[in-house]
């Protein structure tokens, strides 16, 4: 089962490699990983999507929590939450018809065209992983994807719950 684990950690050199190390050392899966400093620049927030049974997820959260640089760990999928991922995708639009079709589909998905030239569009889209997957499939059907780049999932718990030091 897919899980989204959020980690609050010191924004210190080597902290990221320690977390990634736990996953490789102990044979856990990393499906995506997203990390950046928070509003407090001394802290970083890392979101990792992984999969495994309850026992594995419990071990992942415990082993990550054990790292000295880590302040807090939560499994966002334990409760209601918001998750978003951003994707940039460059598609070849060689004909008038393709250009129109790509634009129409982008509108339907509430994606934005952020760069244009004679032969291609670059489109920005945010949403859940499923939505981005669906958009990719659609783009592949109506045009040719030249390249794409995804940020990996980031997320927050809904309501009052928050991950703070």
């Amino acid at each position, binding site marked *: 089962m897919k899980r989204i684990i959020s980690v609050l950690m010191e924004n210190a050199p080597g902290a990221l490699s320690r977390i990634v190390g736990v996953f490789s050392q102990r044979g856990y899966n990393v499906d995506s990983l997203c990390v950046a400093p928070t509003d407090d620049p001394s802290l970083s927030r890392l979101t990792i999507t992984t999969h495994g049974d309850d026992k594995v997820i419990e*071990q992942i959260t*415990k082993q990550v929590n*054990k*790292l000295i640089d880590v302040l807090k760990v939560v499994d966002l999928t334990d409760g209601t939450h918001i998750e978003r991922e951003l994707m940039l995708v460059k598609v070849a639009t060689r004909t008038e018809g393709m250009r129109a079709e790509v634009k129409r589909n982008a509108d339907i998905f509430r994606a934005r065209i952020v760069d244009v030239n004679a032969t291609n569009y670059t489109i920005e889209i945010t949403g859940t992983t499923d939505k981005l997957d669906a958009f990719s499939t659609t783009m592949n059907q109506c045009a040719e994807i030249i390249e794409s780049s995804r940020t990996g999932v980031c997320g927050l718990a809904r309501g009052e719950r928050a991950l703070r030091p």
Partner: protein
Amino acid sequence: MKMMSGAAMVVEALKDVGVKHVFGYPGGAVLDIYDALFAQDDVEHVLVRHEQAAAHMADGYARATGKTGTVLVTSGPGATNTITGIATAYMDSIPMVILSGQVPSMHIGEDAFQETDMVGCSRPIVKHSFLVKRAVDIPEAIAKAYYIANTGRPGPVVVDLPKDLVNVQEEHPYHFPADVTMRSYNPTEKGHPRQVKKAVKSLIKAKRPVLYVGGGAIASEASARVIQLAEQLHAPVTCTLMGLGAFPGTHEQFLGMLGMHGTLEANKAMHNADCILALGARFDDRVTNNVAKFCPHADIIHVDIDPASISKTVNAHIPVVGSVDTVLEQILEQLADKELADQQHKLSEWWEQIAQWRTRQCLNYEDSASVIKPQKVIQALYKHTNGDAYVSSDVGQHQMFAALYYPFKNPRQWINSGGLGTMGFGLPAAMGVQFAHRDAVSVVVTGDGSIQMNIQELSTCLQYNLPVKIISLNNRALGMVRQWQDMIYKGRHSHSYMDSMPDFVKLAEAYGHVGIRVDKLEDLDAAMEKCFSYTDRLVFMDIQVDQNEHVYPMQIKFGAMDDMRLSKTERT
């Protein structure tokens, strides 16, 4: 504020931490630190012959005292040579700080001479590590390193020091933090009261309880409370390989070690128990055998300071996160209120059952008049040291014989590489023990394979006049490998035989020590006596033992805890 060089700061910070001994080896990147060490007498530096041994010495020192061991090595090969020693300490949760030199900051990443990414190399086997970036940060990094190493679940911490930071020419203000606090690191000492209450209830209810005591009981200095609880409950006690000594091996409630080479009664009691109180033990695969068949009738109470150890391999019914000693104090407080008067009566059936298992006398072995049995050597060692020696061990058959045939009375008396199983650990560990306890008898039980993995330290022993006693069970083979080849590989002894043994007596003498070879059983007692009469000399006892002996009992793979071979021909 005092002004001093980075190198002087390193030494000053060690003094402020209270370090008395540093085990190390100089080299280019740490020459400034060595220069600062030269100018003072507070911190004694011990010059080893190989950096791996420095780590094992610091480790033995830490195990024998509970204090953090300290290692100082240069960059590159100096640092990488400590890796096995760091991994050994990590697996057994031993507090250690490794100060490693690093190439100057501006050359990091250039593949400079003697450069290795020590923080990267050691990452999976340290509790934490620091790459210090500014000289003024040295005292704080060192203070934090010692704090982290010896609080919570102890472990090794690396402090990597680039050469430009410790330059003796430049001075910086020195400030040693009076108190270390870290927002991201606050180990839980006290057990949750609700969990403690549940544990007490389960212990009171139990008709067939067992205390399963691991290395965490030693790390948290919980021995006195383990004994108190065991006696109040009148419960049987078993110790892991790492926990031996936490409960006296001579106590009538002691069942012996459990696990792969545990006693029949310990493993039987575990398998049939209705309540298991695990104290600082981690349900290692060398204990549980097949986890699917592990202790099917027991409520498992697991006390451990590391939440990640709880329910890692075996599910705990009552997890209690906290220091073993503190949680035992909480349990004992609550027990005082309960009715314990009829414990003896309540557990009488259980003890009758245990007495019946004990009648098998599983540690009996077939004696011989023609060859020396290795078990016999350990029994003789026990006799000649009154059971009071610090016994360090290498890894292999001799390690198991020492664990089974030398009942340890006190915690920290038994020093061995339990988790990583590092051959070559024993001699340097026994040296570390001797530095910590100058007047005590420090023995290493080893074999002809293990001793050759760090034999160069015989030279260090001479330099520092360490009267370590080496008891080498020489069977001309890698005994444990050979045993498995006998049992599993139809006796095909692939590369487990050494055809070119050195003359260990001459070797010991070449290093300036005393060597004694024992070939015949009738000479064993006299030789032991002679060995321990040399109170100020290192003695190397090269004892020729039976090559074909196996360690029994031994769990049968994929079985339950109590599925065991009891000898070459018998099984449960």
